């Protein structure tokens, strides 16, 4: 009975939209975008944690990232807008530096040891708790997105198309997509559909010990990096028994992502509006990360470095020994995701607005999650607004996840990436916005329209924490 009532209401609503005559008949066409707008955006992100996925779910996750974007929106005529978004992001990461964790000589090792905090050693050594001097310690991502949109004369129908390209050292992504939006009911209701495809390509890099095994086969211990290097067993004695026989390189290195998004927005009252989102995402190809190590509980442990640190391997006291991998993470080559989200904004009064967001997420790797966030913009004056915010995120782990040294070599799929584990996260934010609708401050032919400054602190209950500062400034052509 309840279902029938629901269907009846939904039907009434749809009929209501279709019967409503749009009263916004066009007398004249206002330009969709009056003049060129330019956004400069930048952020500084810093994180730390104790569950490095490169080191099999244990070790330093220190990472800093500096990103900047310039977004230029150009009105081509009254109806059409071309937007170009170009960005670059440069990071340094302790975790990814440990793809090659060994600071001293080795065939695939890189450079001089410039880390003075480390214990002195003669042969190669490393530790999951500090960055190595390997080349993979840093990288830069460059990205560009070009979007074209067209609005109908009555502004009730909009279509857009976009192309995207991004590139970093070991990964290239090409994407394209498009969507349509239709406004009904005197622009009180909007329905949108969009679709995107990303065709990505890995150029996989592997952990040093596995790379050498792949290059030289069973004789790898007398060739390349391992030539003349002593491998230690769990007792700290020299051993030649290390053999990562589970490891094979990836043959197919594509990763394709397909998404369809459906949106519904509604002005509910004079002071409230909401929107609902529903996405369907499908990924296929190489969904594993090729340099995430995995250590099996049913395989013996082998190390390179200083034997005295083996008993304290899992603690930050370990300054000079690194465990050799049994394999890399293995995840299915398909993933199906369904996120459902909603936003609800309420105008409380001329000083206060309430902005809320909720999302439920499910995927066929066994992960479910809930996200809830709230933001309370407070207008201090005509030009200044501050906006405190809070976001809560909780997630149930993937069925393929297990911590350091707990997977078995007989399993088909395995990962120790804590981004796929069970955790809760809290994010506390504060921002300030300056807006000058008259754009009195000018640089050359552009007037300053607004400035945004945001700070957010992120705490995950597995020990990862992060801070991010974001700055944005918008200019409008005069």
């Amino acid at each position: 009975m309840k279902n029938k009532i629901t269907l009846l209401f939904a039907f009434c609503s749809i009929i209501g939209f279709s019967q409503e005559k749009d009263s916004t008949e066009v007398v004249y066409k206002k330009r969709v975008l009056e003049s060129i707008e330019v956004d400069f955006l930048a952020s500084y992100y810093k994180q730390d944690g104790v569950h490095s996925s490169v080191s099999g779910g244990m070790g330093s996750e220190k990472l800093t990232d500096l990103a900047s974007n310039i977004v230029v929106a150009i009105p081509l005529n009254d109806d059409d807008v071309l937007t170009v978004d170009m960005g670059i992001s440069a990071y340094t990461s302790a975790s990814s530096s440990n793809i090659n964790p060994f600071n001293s000589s080795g065939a695939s090792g890189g450079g001089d040891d410039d880390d003075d905090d480390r214990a002195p050693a003669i042969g190669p050594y490393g530790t999951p708790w500090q960055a190595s001097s390997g080349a993979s310690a840093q990288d830069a991502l460059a990205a560009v997105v070009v979007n074209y949109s067209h609005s109908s004369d009555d502004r009730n129908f909009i279509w857009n198309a976009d192309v995207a390209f991004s590139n970093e050292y070991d990964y290239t992504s090409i994407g394209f997509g498009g969507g349509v939006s239709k406004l009904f009911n005197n622009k009180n209701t909007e329905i949108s559909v969009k679709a995107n495809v990303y065709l990505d390509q890995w150029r996989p890099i592997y952990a040093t010990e596995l790379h050498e095994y792949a290059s030289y086969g069973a004789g790898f211990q007398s060739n390349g990096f391992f030539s003349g290097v002593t491998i230690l067993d769990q007792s700290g004695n020299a051993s030649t028994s290390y053999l990562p026989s589970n490891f094979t390189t990836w043959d197919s290195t594509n990763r394709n992502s397909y998404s369809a998004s459906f949106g519904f927005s509604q002005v509910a009252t004079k002071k409230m509006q909401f929107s609902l989102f529903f996405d369907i995402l499908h990924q296929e190809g190489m969904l594993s990360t090729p340099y995430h190590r995995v250590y099996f509980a049913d395989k013996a442990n082998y190390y390179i470095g200083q034997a005295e640190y083996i008993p304290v391997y899992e603690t930050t006291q370990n300054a000079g020994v690194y465990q050799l991998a049994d394999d890399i993470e293995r995840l299915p080559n398909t993933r199906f995701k369904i996120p459902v989200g909603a936003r609800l904004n309420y105008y409380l009064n001329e000083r206060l607005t309430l902005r809320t967001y909720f999302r439920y997420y499910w995927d066929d790797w066994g992960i479910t999650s809930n996200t809830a966030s709230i933001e309370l913009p407070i207008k201090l004056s005509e030009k200044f607004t501050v906006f405190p915010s809070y976001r809560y995120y909780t997630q149930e782990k993937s069925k393929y996840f297990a911590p350091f040294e707990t997977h078995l070599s007989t399993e088909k799929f395995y990962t120790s990436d804590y981004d796929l584990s069970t955790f809760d996260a809290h994010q506390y934010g504060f921002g300030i916005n300056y807006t000058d609708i008259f754009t009195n401050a000018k640089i050359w032919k552009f007037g300053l329209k607004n400035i945004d400054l945001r700070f957010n602190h992120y705490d995950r209950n597995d020990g990862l924490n992060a801070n991010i500062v974001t700055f944005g400034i918008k200019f409008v052509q005069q």
Partner: protein
Amino acid sequence: MKKIILVVIVVFSAISCNTVKEYDKQYINDPEMKLSARSSERYETTFQVYREAASGANGGKTGGGCGCN
């Protein structure tokens, strides 16, 4: 959970029959009332997509780029 979803659908369906006239939209047109994330939130969305398993349904990117670090 099903009851909550039913209530939400019924309430939203009923509300959606309303029409707010253009001249009554001074509050709805306030910049803080936009039903989308702020442009400066994009970097937060990016790191959340990297550090959390969930993505999508927020207007953010849903594919492309590794984000494995």
